[in-house]
């Protein structure tokens, strides 16, 4: 069902914009996904929900995603249960 959803989504992008999703401008990408999101708002098992789920996991377990947003600390060496949060600093991530 997920693969089928991807196919339908690609065809929709092609029909509407004459280009696959990856080639769209940021604005058009936003609109294209927005349509899916709206259609899916009350359906827990919809294509959009799955797409979103796997995208979030995929992105934040990728090296690019982790390094872009977090301070990657695979070897913390100590544990502090109450470290003061520094505003604006990137949060730690361990694994």
């Amino acid at each position, binding site marked *: 069902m997920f693969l089928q959803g991807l196919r339908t989504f690609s065809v929709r992008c092609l029909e509407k914009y004459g280009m696959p999703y990856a080639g769209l401008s940021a604005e058009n990408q936003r609109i294209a996904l927005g349509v899916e999101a709206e259609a899916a708002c009350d359906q827990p098992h919809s294509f*959009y929900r799955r797409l979103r789920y796997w995208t979030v*996991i995929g992105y934040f377990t990728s090296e690019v995603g982790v390094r872009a*947003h977090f301070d990657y600390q695979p070897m913390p060496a100590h544990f502090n249960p109450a470290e003061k949060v520094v505003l604006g600093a*990137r949060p730690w991530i361990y694994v």
Partner: protein
Amino acid sequence: MGSPLPHHGKPPDAIVVGSGITGGWAAKELCERGLQVLLLERGPNVVHGVDYVTEHLAPWMMPFRGKIDRRRAIEHQPIQSKCYACDEYASHFFVDDRQHPYESDASRPFSWIRGYQLGGRSITWGRQVYRWSDLDFKANAMDGNGIPWPISYADIASWYDHVEDVIGVSGNRDGVPELPDGRFLPPMPLTPVEMALQTRLQTSFAGRRLISGRVAVLTVPHRGRAACHYCGPCERGCSLGAYFSSLSSTLPAAKRTGNLQIRTDTIVERVLFDPSLGRATGVAVIDASTHAREILCAPLIFLCASTLASTQILLNSRSETFPGGLGNSSGTLGRYLMDHAMFRAVAAEAPGFEDWTVFGQRPSGFYIPRFRNRDGHSTDFLRGYAYQGGSFRSSWARGLQGSDFGVPAKERMSRLGPWNIWVSGFGECLPRRDNAVTLSDGPADTWGLPRLKISFAWGENEFRMAEDAALEADLMLAAAGFKTTRNVSDDPIAQGGLAVHEMGTARMGDDRTQSVLNKWNQVHDAPNVFVTDGACMASSACQNPSLTYMALTARAATHAATLYKQGRL
């Protein structure tokens, strides 16, 4: 008949079956008392450090980003993958369910979570260690469920000391009578959220305490092992040996004596009994890869193959003298199986602590010791439960909820989220005759051995307890100002087996018509056979059991070595 292995030229004094938490302990104690030990392990060798192949790997280095390969899991580990620790990083330390089948009732399945390798489940275990007290050892005698324990806290206290000294336990001396203090290294600290709940319990819930988890992970260097570096996922293995496992602790100690020989890939099929001598003479084994059969003899035999595997060996040791299995003259072998009732976790958001976060990953949490039915009986169920819990500031994973996308969503998810706190109750399981294992008449396994058949169901008492535990968790979290968010799973009690605290089936007792083992873990019917893993347990208490297994093993091994050297075994 019998070909005792050349063991530095001498036959072994003792055969130890299994190299997990209890087998490692038996080997160490026997070797240190001068006995030549042959340790038999059915699984492959695991070299400490070298074979922790996923240690410190980032998710992007794993083909499935750390999530288990679903297709492989469906085929090879449909049962093992129900255990939280069996993910892509650690699944190689869990058995292949297809290779190691057993039977259980489809309508109430029992999940038998296993690790067949050198070190057993000591590689993947959760490391939480709590002593039992006489509230637990006297429970059977008090309410008539099960049979009285043949030992009390006084018999085991010094063995707890000994075990804690060796394995290294981080914890606080909390002064809770029902959860005796031990020999502790500095505790792992609590978070501000946990301290707030701790204070709340003190002020508003008489008799309830929140304490730091007691955990077999080192906060300071200890006996040649390094302190924890707080990387997080212990179950992948720790080359620094910061947590206790057979591989980091007991097996190296046993090896240092020069008295240990290890044979891996060797499946113990049964114990051989000589009726004319009234004792066991050795074990029959099968080479796991060639399927070659062999007999190994020794005057002393320690079964430490884990609760159900040791009972399986005894059941399979059928003879004319013992048609129902070795040690089964009482008819209780295989019966009174227990596991801890693992209640549905309760989670909450804890507002007001946004200025703080944690640095590092603490391989432990907090603990709320049993507070029900401590002095007399005041609930609609018998005995009690304890909670384990933890807290953390949520990270990107909270982004899985919601429907936003694009750059703003990314920004939102990568900011520190709210504090979350969760508690999960572990309830005592009453010993029941019908919760039992037998040998199946169905198809044998790859090695021609009968499969184990497991019948297990939770009882009314556990369900009542689950209700109470859920209610009380809500009350306590709410009193601390936390907002309960959701119940994490659906069933009020997880499937039997999933607490991985399976115990009983060869219980200890003074009355040999009602039990399999005596107070020294000796088989009543074959005094040179000792069973010291969880099979020996006559009740389950609600504390994680492995510390007690270790203490009983050390105690039994010392007793056996003494008798043996006096020529009395």
